[in-house]
């Protein structure tokens, strides 16, 4: 089911203030306040990881896009909670793996969300549902797990785009 976040052989070393962790140079983890205002720090956290691992621009854009859509969705559906949303970034083989964890969320499976009507005339087009649709279109693999108020969304995307 869940892959362990910290492999036993890896020593955890805090290299940054603000709770960001590098693990053996391959995994970074940080928690963010539940607000769209956190996006700037989310993006800068992701950019640090991309720089470390020489992630190309195409993959970087796609991953940033997916993280924003899923993060803002979690904020939107439970804005009053004080709990933070955690983000893990990891290189596994030739893939980047992103795990977004929310310990206070209602079940919402993005992999099963309905498709928006893309052919609708302008007056009927709306942005709702578009973000998740685009994430599914752009990211190689998305997994969703919900148990006891905790949602974990895992994104797996090839680095070789």
């Amino acid at each position, binding site marked *: 089911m869940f892959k362990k976040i910290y492999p036993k052989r890896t020593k955890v070393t805090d290299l940054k203030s603000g709770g960001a962790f590098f693990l053996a140079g391959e995994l970074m983890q940080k928690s963010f306040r539940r607000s*769209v*205002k956190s*996006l*700037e720090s989310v*993006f800068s956290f992701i950019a640090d990881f991309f720089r470390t691992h020489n992630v190309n*621009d*195409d993959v970087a*854009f*796609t991953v*940033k*896009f997916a993280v*924003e*859509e899923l993060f*803002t969705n979690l904020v939107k559906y439970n804005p009053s909670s004080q709990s933070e949303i955690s983000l893990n970034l990891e290189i596994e083989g030739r893939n980047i793996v992103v795990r977004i964890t929310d310990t206070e969320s209602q079940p919402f499976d993005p992999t099963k969300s309905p498709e928006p009507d*893309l*052919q609708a*005339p*302008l*007056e009927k*087009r*709306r*942005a709702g549902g*578009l*973000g998740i*649709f*685009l994430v599914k*279109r*752009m990211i190689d693999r998305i997994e969703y797990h919900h148990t006891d108020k905790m949602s974990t969304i895992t994104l797996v995307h090839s680095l070789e785009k």
Partner: protein
Amino acid sequence: MLKITVDSQGVVHLQGRLDASQAEEATKALSKITKSAVVDFAELDYISSAGLGVLIAAQKRLKESGQGLTLTNMNNHIRDVFRYARFDLIFKIN
């Protein structure tokens, strides 16, 4: 961050990132446009669905009076997002 400026020709220039944290500001800036206009994406690095929502709302409002936005100079990533969302059906994209 996002910066929106209008030049002397009436061309709207987007610069930076149009994400959910900038959507409110962008809505405010685009609400000042009342006639057909070109929106230049040359210096826009990134857009998310929140940004698409801002543009849809502006286009709907303008179309009611027979006006509309023409989008130009998108980078490849943003162009892909617009293509996947089929925004080519609702905007003129150069």
